[in-house]
């Protein structure tokens, strides 16, 4: 017993402590070094971080070069495979295109309406800082479903940026180096995305399952039980990282895992990613401030000019109103004066008529009195009275003869 234990110790010591002829370090020292590396890495030690970044830059580039031949073979295999199914797909595409063309127009209208309503509720995001990147490494590690892109902090890639292939969500940036960055794919087991499912507007969290699909978590089982249709899965926008409405995948009604979880089939095959779009979203107002300050200033100036013109117009309108009121007042006064004039004219006419009548009456009375009393006032050879037609004669007639 003692001998076998001693043999074991000798064998272990020989294996871990003894250096070979070409070995510079013993196995044990390198194991300790690995443990130190691992521990300090977990504690985010700065020196280790710098070493990590350096190694990553070298490895990502080297890996891209080394993977060249196999990628070539894989791409050729994929091309040949695609050619075999090309005719069938073409026929299918033609018929689908006809249907889609008719749907497209109504979709455009819906998109415009959607944008309008989102603007109304201040939930309208626009793309900012859009970068196209090439997938350098697509290693399907058992630990991490991720891809490495050929753009890094030099190209304004930031942590948490959204990665799309076409319009479909692929993942988010989880690690940034100077020239490269790592994207955590939706299929990764650590990926947790807030999603909405339609029809029914069911809110949930989608996680990857480490293979090519995702699973729905943290949702009420009852909300999905009664649903007999296929469900469309897209981002809900909860949490503010992703814009709402980015399509992710589809849940077929018969697709349920052994644990009863709903399985999401992604629209994109993550093993076929070649070029992706990395972008972040921000509210429209903020983006406009950043992108077109000059344009905003111009618009503000135009608004100021319009406001000024509007103020001038208001003053002019007020002046016009005042002038109208004055005119009305003048017209009113004028009417009153006219009436007065008419009244006065009438009065004058009446007075004139009265005067005329009086004169006529006087004349009439004079003629009548002249017939009777003319003899008593008229100058003849025998008296020294008044000459016919003179004022004295007239006064004498009206007095019915000369009065003494």
């Amino acid at each position, binding site marked *: 017993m003692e001998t076998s234990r001693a*043999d*074991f110790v*000798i*064998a*272990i010591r*020989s*294996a*871990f402590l003894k250096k*070979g*002829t*070409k*070995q*510079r*370090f*013993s*196995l044990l020292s*390198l*194991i300790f*070094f*690995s*443990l*130190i*590396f*691992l521990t300090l*890495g*977990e504690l985010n030690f700065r020196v*280790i971080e710098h070493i*990590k970044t350096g*190694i*990553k830059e070298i*490895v*990502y580039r*080297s*890996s891209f070069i*080394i*993977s060249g031949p*196999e*990628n070539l073979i*894989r791409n050729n295999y994929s091309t040949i495979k695609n050619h075999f199914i090309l005719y069938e797909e073409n026929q299918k595409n033609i018929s689908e295109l006809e249907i889609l063309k008719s749907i497209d127009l109504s979709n455009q209208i819906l998109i415009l309406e959607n944008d309008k309503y989102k603007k109304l509720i201040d939930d309208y995001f626009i793309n900012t800082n859009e970068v196209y990147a090439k997938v350098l*490494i*697509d*290693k*399907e*590690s*058992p*630990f*991490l479903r*991720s891809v490495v892109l050929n753009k890094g902090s030099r190209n304004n890639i930031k942590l948490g940026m959204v990665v799309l292939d076409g319009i479909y969500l692929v993942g988010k940036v989880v*690690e940034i180096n100077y020239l490269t960055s*790592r994207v955590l794919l939706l299929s990764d*087991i*650590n990926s947790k995305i807030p999603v909405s499912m339609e029809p029914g507007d069911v809110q949930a969290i989608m996680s990857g*399952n*480490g*293979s090519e699909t995702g699973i729905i978590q943290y949702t009420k089982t009852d909300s999905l039980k009664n649903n007999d249709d296929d469900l469309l899965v897209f981002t809900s926008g909860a949490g503010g990282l992703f814009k709402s409405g980015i399509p992710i995948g589809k849940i077929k009604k018969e697709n349920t895992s052994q644990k009863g979880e709903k399985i999401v089939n992604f629209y994109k095959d993550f*093993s076929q990613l070649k070029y992706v779009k990395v972008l972040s979203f921000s509210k429209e107002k903020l983006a406009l401030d950043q992108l077109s300050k000059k344009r905003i200033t111009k618009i503000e100036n135009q608004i100021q000019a319009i406001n000024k013109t509007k103020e001038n117009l208001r003053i002019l309108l007020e002046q016009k109103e005042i002038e109208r009121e004055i005119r009305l007042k003048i017209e009113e006064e004028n009417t009153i004066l006219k009436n007065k004039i008419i009244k006065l004219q009438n009065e004058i006419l009446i007075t004139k008529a009265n005067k005329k009548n009086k004169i006529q009456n006087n004349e009439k009375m004079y003629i009548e009195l002249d017939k009777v009393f003319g003899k008593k006032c008229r100058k003849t050879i025998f008296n020294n009275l008044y000459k016919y037609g003179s004022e004295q004669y007239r006064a004498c007639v009206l007095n019915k003869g000369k009065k003494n």
Partner: protein
Amino acid sequence: MTNKGKVNFFLYTYFPVILLFISVLSEFDFKNIELKYFSFEFSYILIFYYSLKRRDSLGYVAIFIAGLFSDVVAGSPMGMSSLIYLLLCGAAAYLRNITLSPSLFKDWIFFLVTLLILNSLSFMLLTLISNYNINYLDQLISVIVTALLYLIFSYIFNFVDNFLLGSNNAS
């Protein structure tokens, strides 16, 4: 030694190291060809085989660096693969020390046990310390397939070594 002989000798000497770095830097995986439940760690087979059969063909420093590279490519915590690779080396060295009459079957059983222990260790480190979520089933399948393929690859490596060494001796 002729030029061909020199090339063969160079290949014989550095073939394991070159193959190790290609395997860790390459993004090739059997998952890419859509074979479900089929993935294996080629680097484990390579390191174990050459540490067992030709102890000086793979330097410990080279293995350590290859581990770091593997971590970077796979996205696992830095130092994890190095630790596993070096422990695998240590296990192979221990087996070499205690073995008087080498047998492929014994090597294979030892490799399987070592893989199970090392994967358990890596699983514990990743889940308990680094908070990684790992699909245990995937990892178990990977271990079993890797162990099964060790038999095939040991024949292939043996054949390649004999071919390179044989042509080298002939020249």
